């Protein structure tokens, strides 16, 4: 399945009253579309949270949002700045402790979709959020693992959202923080991880999915107006491109309107 506008959303006609969507907006909308209604979604802060909240306000009103702060079924009016904003607790169906959210909910396999971002990603969807450079003497010290390693291993599937650049899409990670498809060829399954791993990587250029056999990421679709050569150029390994490359549907008017309203509310917070 490539990312297309969900049924019922009126096509791809962009409202002339709305500015042309930015690449980040196209990416966020494409990510939101990956979430089916009723799914239970473990959400990180930033783009994942924005996309999940967009999905909940468009095609997936019954999407269950879980934040690692222990809020289950949060229904924030605006995208939270942090994963522990008060509104998450106020609107949640249940608030549980942090040990419980990881043990009873994530580890036990109750999460359908984990939503992650990354500083570096490799061809098998493995993720680095720890350091750029050597671990002992890093060029850039990143925030670290957070909830990502167990989201990556235990969520039913993982959606990764990040901008496509040669600095991010690297031949070799400086540090493996969270496991995607490891070294491919079924090596993830051999590790005994309970979730299926990354099923899609959404970027500002297009949509990548793991090859069913090798698990190497393949460019399956580009966003409207994107040259696949640009995606290849912005990838630090020889990026495979699907023989029948798709084009994602541009953000629908309704999607973009909701996204912009959310972004404005988030920025005003």
């Amino acid at each position: 399945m490539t990312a297309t506008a969900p049924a019922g959303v009126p096509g791809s006609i962009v409202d002339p009253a709305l500015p042309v969507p930015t690449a980040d907006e196209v990416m966020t909308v494409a990510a939101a579309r990956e979430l089916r209604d009723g799914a239970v979604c473990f959400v990180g802060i930033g783009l994942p949270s924005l996309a999940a909240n967009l999905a909940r306000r468009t095609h997936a009103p019954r999407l269950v949002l879980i934040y690692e702060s222990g809020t289950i079924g949060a229904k924030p009016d605006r995208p939270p700045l942090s994963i522990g904003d008060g509104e998450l607790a106020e609107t949640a169906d249940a608030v549980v402790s942090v040990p419980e959210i990881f043990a009873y909910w994530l580890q036990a396999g109750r999460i359908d979709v984990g939503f992650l971002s990354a500083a570096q990603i490799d061809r098998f969807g493995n993720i680095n959020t720890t350091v750029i450079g050597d671990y002992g003497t890093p060029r850039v010290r990143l925030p670290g693992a957070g909830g990502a390693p167990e989201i990556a291993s235990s969520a039913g599937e993982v959606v990764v959202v990040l901008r496509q650049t040669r600095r991010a899409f690297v031949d070799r990670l400086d540090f493996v923080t969270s496991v995607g498809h490891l070294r491919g060829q079924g090596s993830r399954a051999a590790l005994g991880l309970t979730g299926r791993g990354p099923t899609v990587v959404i970027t500002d250029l297009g949509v990548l999915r793991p090859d069913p056999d090798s698990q190497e990421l393949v460019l399956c679709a580009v966003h409207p107006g994107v040259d696949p050569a640009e995606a290849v150029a912005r990838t630090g390994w020889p990026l495979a491109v699907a023989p029948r490359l798709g084009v994602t549907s541009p953000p629908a008017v309704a999607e973009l309107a909701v996204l912009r309203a959310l972004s404005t509310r988030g920025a005003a917070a």
Partner: protein
Amino acid sequence: MAELVSLREAVAELVRDGDVVALEGFTHLIPYAAGHEIVRQHRRDLTLVRMTPDVLYDQMIGAGTARRLVFSWGGNPGVGSLHRFRDAVEHGWPGPLELEEHSHAGMATRYVAAASGLPFGVLRGYAGTDLSAHTANVAPVRCPFTGEQLTAVAALRLDVAVVHAQQVDRAGNVGLWGISGVQKEAVLAARSSIVTVEERVDALDPRCRVVLPSWVVSAVAVEPGGAHPSYAHGYSSRDNAFYTAWDTISRDRTSFSGWLRRHVLDTGGFAEHLRLLAEETHRAGAA
């Protein structure tokens, strides 16, 4: 039995140079007042522990209180990097900072093990990552029933746990509600504990989801607003503007040092810092 004391007395009595100290809080209820007091009393060589070291730990690291950090995610949530943390790790300023890092699930399991009086806890985690290569506190363990290999993490025992809560009652019981993080586990994983609270009440609010009986808390200090710029559900809102402003304040060593002197070292307590902040905000608004 929890003694009601000033925060100054609590820190003076319970936090020693070289201690393993966690000031916990998951976005909500972060004990800023207590952290500032530790800086003000010039504690050194602490092993600071926390799942989500954020701006408070950036301040404490920049102030030179920490020798070592045990953590799982260090950032300014929704804003970006912690510049003082990065400066310590990348350039050793104001001193080198040893790191021991885990995943959130691993840290939570380590706290639970310690709170439960067990030497280790078990989880599905770390497999395939580079995390376990850099710590001795992660090891494989085999299920004696299924033969399946899982991951053991060592219990995370603390000298002192510091948390902020909404209320303490007349009997010294502490109550909190809203996002509760790992605060209970941290207190139960520690030899001693300091709790700051918004207020003292006759009876705890029935919304309290976590109650720490008086006899597991060492000291309680009333510090209204003591979680600022974090928040106390039902008492205050998160000051997102401060978190954003911190990015600028902390980016540069000089600017940070000036702020630290003005807001922490040269103040008599957290209330004075809050007054200064309010004045600065007022001036900025008027300018």
